[in-house]
């Protein structure tokens, strides 16, 4: 594995390898000194052209726990704000001797372009509406950890699927691992050509809740919505929000997941967020292990399959 740009780059075997490596790194994170020298001397550049809390910090923590050096970059404090082009920024960071670039950008396809320009490993940390592969991996890992397996689980993805890169990556990963996926969303927030996706679509939230294993809530991405797709947030919550009443209809042991950040009280009611089967914090914790595994596979165990 050279780059991680899309879930399509991963075979089921690759995913299983990431998960079993993550088991090792979860153990590493529980040690009194949670750090291994596996990537000593490697440099990872964090290129976040778009805001992020958990993904950036999670990648940083992952790189540091593997003893890699981290170069951080943000648009507002770099020469990008003076108008330096993406290509020149990439060339500059390559010239400084980085071994991997973690790229997030508001436009789809930027990580692929960066990978074509430079000869270092590139990890897609979210590009526009397109993909967010490490998020999909950590979600599968969380389901695997809680429910034993992803296969044959019924996963409901609820909310703004249209603008969600997380949903696109998750659907690919869930389906690859043989889960059954149902999208539930207002018609205006369904992606174009949804009929070509390997999923079911439903507009009846209450009826699908009783027989699902996981409800995966998505954030209402007001910053990406250019048209009036929703009448109001209050109406959205009434029709599509995971309220206490709806959460009570869930089966015993059914998980509530969300990629974060949550609009408290919009997609998920605050009381539901505090329940033991709401696993948002586990997702974040597993995110560090998954990203350690990805960085280790890209930088430390090159050619391990040969």
């Amino acid at each position, binding site marked *: 594995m050279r780059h991680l740009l899309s879930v399509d780059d991963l075979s089921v075997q690759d995913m299983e390898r990431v998960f079993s490596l993550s088991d090792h790194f979860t*153990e590493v994170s529980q040690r009194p000194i949670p750090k291994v020298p596996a990537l000593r001397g490697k440099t990872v550049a964090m290129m976040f052209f778009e805001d992020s809390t958990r993904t950036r910090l999670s990648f940083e923590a992952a790189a540091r726990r*593997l003893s890699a050096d981290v170069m951080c970059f943000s648009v507002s404090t770099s020469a990008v704000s003076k108008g330096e082009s993406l290509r020149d920024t990439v060339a500059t960071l390559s010239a400084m001797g980085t071994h991997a670039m973690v790229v997030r950008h508001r436009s789809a396809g930027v990580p692929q372009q960066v990978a074509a320009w430079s000869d270092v490993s590139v990890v897609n940390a979210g590009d526009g509406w397109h993909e967010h592969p490490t998020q999909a991996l950590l979600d599968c890992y969380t389901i695997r950890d809680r429910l034993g397996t992803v296969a044959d689980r019924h996963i409901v993805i609820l909310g703004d699927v249209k603008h969600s890169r997380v949903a696109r990556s998750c659907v690919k990963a869930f389906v690859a691992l043989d889960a059954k996926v149902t999208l539930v969303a207002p018609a205006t927030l369904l992606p174009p050509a949804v009929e070509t996706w390997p999923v079911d679509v439903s507009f009846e939230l209450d009826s699908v809740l009783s027989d699902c294993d996981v409800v995966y809530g998505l954030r209402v991405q007001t910053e990406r919505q250019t048209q009036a797709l929703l009448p109001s947030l209050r109406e959205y919550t009434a029709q599509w929000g995971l309220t206490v009443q709806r959460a009570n209809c869930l089966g015993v042991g059914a998980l509530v997941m969300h990629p974060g950040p949550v609009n408290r009280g919009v997609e998920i009611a605050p009381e539901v967020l505090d329940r033991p089967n709401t696993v948002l914090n586990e997702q974040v914790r597993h995110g560090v292990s998954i990203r350690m595994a990805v960085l280790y596979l890209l930088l430390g165990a090159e050619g391990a399959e040969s």
Partner: protein
Amino acid sequence: MAERERRRTPPYGGVFVARTRVMQEEDIKRATWRMAHEIMERNHGSDQVVIVGLQTGGVWLAEDIAAVMVEIAGSGCSLPCGTLDVAFYRDDISLRPLLPEAPTHIPVNLDGQVVVIVDDVLYTGRTIRAALDALNSYGRPRAVQLAVMVDRGHRELPIRPDFVGKNLPTRQDEMVNATRQGVDIGEVCK
């Protein structure tokens, strides 16, 4: 099998072909028995001793040594026995493919304990160096000792075993395979 030898055998390399059996199953049992006694003698019993087997080759020997020590000390004694995978600590991580094989499990905090590292074959000493590094992440042991079933020589680092099942002079192109069933010396055929 020592790490360097493992990489030459499947799934990484060729097939191990045994030429001579140098220790029989009974010899392994006697050597295990003797090493367990030596460990107890050196440490005046088994108090504050932790046995740590290196994944994957050293685990069976660690389990056997710990079982004998419990037998000697009496059934009331509890002897912590853990496992350690050193893949993330090796100095040749960038030179060749390296994936951890089995989980690390250290059951107790190692501060102030005497840790006995157990492996099947001692060769260059690089695995042991990595293991010493790895142990640092779990605390500060009072002492670290090393028990191996076979010492085949050719050390590349200043490392020496405390308890040895058998000293076995070998050529560098030979390979040693040590299991509960016996120790074989042979070659790897591609």
